[in-house]
């Protein structure tokens, strides 16, 4: 993917760029707001990563300008602010996702990957599959290697979320947002305990581990 990062702190900017390049993306870094806007408008990027506070032109203004010009490129807004309305304000301006500093690279990488546009599936699938696991969304039955697995509703929702984004990392906060609709970071390791329950049912009785832990980021079911 071709990614543009607009971030005024060089150390943080370079950290993002290095990480994304290591993952095989083509990345440009700009530290100035108005230059960044021009570069972004020139186009050709698959995803933009924009810091909220920038010299010369505010990150929020960049997002608004691009959306005003009807540029559909997905935007991840980075912010040092995390007030009550800041998230809503960012999303209202037209950003697709929002990440609060300080973040670990894994979180940013997972969110950038989630933003990348993919061709929508021809039709809504009724069965999700990964290796020998099958999830029927209509009958809500889950089987692995032919054996039925009994899941609680929240475990089903968690597994469904991982299966729908097969091959991509889902971070803890992304899972909290998608499965429970919670937009804050609990102090307790709640997601870990949910995943470990799910693993106990989906992975433990079988030879091969399906749900992988991605260090410093989250969880993934390989494609």
């Amino acid at each position: 993917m071709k990614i543009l990062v607009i971030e005024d702190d060089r150390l943080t900017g370079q950290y993002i760029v290095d990480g994304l390049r290591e993952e095989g993306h083509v990345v440009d870094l700009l530290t100035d707001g108005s230059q960044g806007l021009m570069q972004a408008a020139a186009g050709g990027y698959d995803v933009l990563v924009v810091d909220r506070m920038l010299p010369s032109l505010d990150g929020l203004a960049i997002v608004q300008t691009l959306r005003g010009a009807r540029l559909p490129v997905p935007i991840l807004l980075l912010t040092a602010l995390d007030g009550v309305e800041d998230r809503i304000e960012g999303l209202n301006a037209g950003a697709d996702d929002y990440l609060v500093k300080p973040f670990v690279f894994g979180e940013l990488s997972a969110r950038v990957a989630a933003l990348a546009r993919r061709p929508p599936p021809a039709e809504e699938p009724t069965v999700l599959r990964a290796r020998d696991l099958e999830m029927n969304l209509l009958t809500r039955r889950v089987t692995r290697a032919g054996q039925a697995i009994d899941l609680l509703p929240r475990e089903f929702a968690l597994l469904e979320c991982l299966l729908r984004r097969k091959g991509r990392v889902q971070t803890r906060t992304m899972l909290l947002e998608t499965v429970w609709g919670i937009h804050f970071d609990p102090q307790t390791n709640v997601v870990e305990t949910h995943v470990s329950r799910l693993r106990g049912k989906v992975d433990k009785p079988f030879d091969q581990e399906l749900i992988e832990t991605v260090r410093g980021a989250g969880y993934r079911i390989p494609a």
Partner: protein
Amino acid sequence: MSRLRSTPLRLTATLVVVFVLFTLAGYATAYLVTRTSLSREVNAQLEQTVDMLRAIAEPDEIRERIGEIAAGAQPRDLLLRYTEPGKPVLGNLTVPIEASAYRVIGHDAIPRPSSTLADSYLAWQGPVGEGRLTLLVGRDSLNELGETFAKVLLFSLVPALLLVTAIGALVARRARDRVEAIRSALARLTSGHHDARVTISGRVDDDLGQIGVAVNRMAEAQEASMEALRQVSADVAHDLRTPIQRVAVLLDRLDDGSLTDSARGTIAEARAETAHIVATFQSLLQIAQLEGGQARASFTAVDLASLAASLADVYEPAGEESGHRLEARVVDAAVVSGDRTLLGRLIANLIENALRHTPPGRIQLIVEGGPAPVLRVVDDGPGIPEGERSRVLRRLYRMERSRTSEGSGLGLSLVAAIAELHEATLTLEDAAPGLRVSVCFPG
């Protein structure tokens, strides 16, 4: 009666009543004075006639004068009758009537067609010369006075009253609308709409206009200082988070896989501490922002019941891990006006607080619906001594002074700030055993 709560309307009503009473008193005085003088005139007329006749010495001359007076008198003004033994009766009153001096008698006592008579007469009866005189002076001028006053009252006071009431109501309504504009702007300002202003309709230089201008000036100053506070917290957030982000980046760089396990352990601890700094800092920042009350502007309807159920679901496995049985008791839908994320944070903090500070046991999450919903988190742990409860809510106060206990200590303070933002009251009670935290939302 609620209309009379408006000061301008009440003042106008009072003014109209005072005006009416004052006018009526004036008319009444004028009426009484005029009536007295008219009454005196009638008396004088009577006395004059009697005195004049008594002054005549010759009986024949008396009869002559009485004949003249009777011939020239209208029955409405004057009736008289003179009887002398052995002589014909004189005067325009043909029938004798009994009357003592200075008595008022009605026209029904006089046997004549009443159309030609006055309503009442002042009577006199007594000896004059050789005979006896009955004299009745008409009092119509006095009766007409009452009618005239009634007419004056009807044609001057009633229209004036209507006019005064109409103009007064109009003026009062205008004043009330202006007062209302000031009141509603103040109400909006206190509920977090810092952009609310008084729309000044009408004069700017009168008292209400001046109050409106002063309120607007105050609101502008308040908005500016809120904006300054926001800017300061934004700057602080930016200035602190960037170095914290750098620390995270540097720790990541350090941890490249070539390190010993103990070194990596130290890095993990450093990361955890960084996360702790961020959490504390974030809570402080949020408490500061919540106290501004701006978040109220974006309130929506939030179902506490479903939010509590979903948070109980989130924490249930983590609770089980630490030996706590987390039970959600949600009776029916409980909709409050609020911010979903903040209310979620409130519930989460209460659950985390219970998980962290109580030994293994039961934790109940109760939502009581109805017009004024209540959220309760009840544990069966050691509870909080009564004297400490209010201090627990105080910012930065920690129950255990040692740093061994987890948590930033801001958890409950943030809960208190979120509750206050939602105008909910937070109470800590003894659940015997354990602690019951109740958040009571306004109805």
